[in-house]
């Protein structure tokens, strides 16, 4: 279960992002998990609920956007049908993964003391 090591890296990134905001509470953590990024969202959520304890994101809500995979032709950018061979129907070009291959910490919502 590599989700645990990814969540551990996520917690480290959150610590760094929160450091310039003293006294801030992390309310929401927005992540984007690609369909072909090799992560099971439910396992990721469970790992987050365990590993956030004692970290800056303790108590935060995890918001996951699951990004569907999208293959496109490298040459002409035509979309390739889901499940089909990874060759462009229009020009025969090779495919590239245009979306759905990444794991990203997109954004944090922080509650900061109003002074």
């Amino acid at each position: 279960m590599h989700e645990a090591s990814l969540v551990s890296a996520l917690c480290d990134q959150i610590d760094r992002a929160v450091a310039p905001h003293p006294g801030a509470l992390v309310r929401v953590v927005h992540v984007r998990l690609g369909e072909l990024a090799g992560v099971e969202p439910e396992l990721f959520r469970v790992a987050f609920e365990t590993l956030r304890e004692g970290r800056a994101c303790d108590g935060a809500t995890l918001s996951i956007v699951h990004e569907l995979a999208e293959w496109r032709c490298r040459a002409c950018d035509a979309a390739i049908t889901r499940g089909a061979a990874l060759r462009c129907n229009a020009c025969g070009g090779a495919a590239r993964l245009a979306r759905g291959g990444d794991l990203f910490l997109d954004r944090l919502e922080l509650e900061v003391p109003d002074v």
Partner: protein
Amino acid sequence: MCDVCGCGDPKVVSVDVHASLLSANDHEAAHLRAHFLEDGVTAINLMGSPGSGKTALLEATARALGGRLRLAAVSGDLATTHDADRLALAGIPSAPITTGTACHLDAAMVAGAVHGGVIGEAVRTSDLFFIENVGNLVCPAIYDLGQAANVVALSVTEGIDKPLKYPVMFKAADLVVLTKVDLLPHLRGVSVGAIADALSRVMPTPRLIELSAVDGTGLAAWAEWLMARRDEVRRAPRPAHPHSHGHEHQR
């Protein structure tokens, strides 16, 4: 809070981060890759299911290439050093990476294993350095280890639909070595054509070598593919000394 003006209310701010969760690993992997290039080492990340024949493939590689090229290897396993012991017996200088509970190798584990010592020297002076990953078709796929190429060993006994079930692994592969093809006559419903069709749906540039470590089928094609990767690495421009940080080197 103050019910006159609302002072004392916390305010919510949004902070854009937009960072890959793999950035720490990718940083370490880039460092390894620069070292491999600097030393002219072709690193191959060998992945596949438990029992797909990764170690047997490397033993056969030693028989086919050991006299011509300098080989080195590290083997990742949750427990035991069996694979590294087998590779050492086959004449490949090797070291185990015992991962405990981790289901994959990451760049830091590889860096730790090849830093210094006898194995570090063997890796630095090798032509081909094999990183035999933990047997697993899921987790190892997303971790860059600084390799020049990803190879997936897929055995014919695993059936025809593994590529469709584990697309992330095969998406990342530069080459699939279809192992144990000497067993094909005994397997009903398994054909190389059906496996190749599945691969074409998940692997952007499908490349398949049919191989048997038992009867030697495909070993020449595999050796030729490895030599081509080695030539690419040898021709690549050497990086400037890759250290912007202060770790100690045992040179």
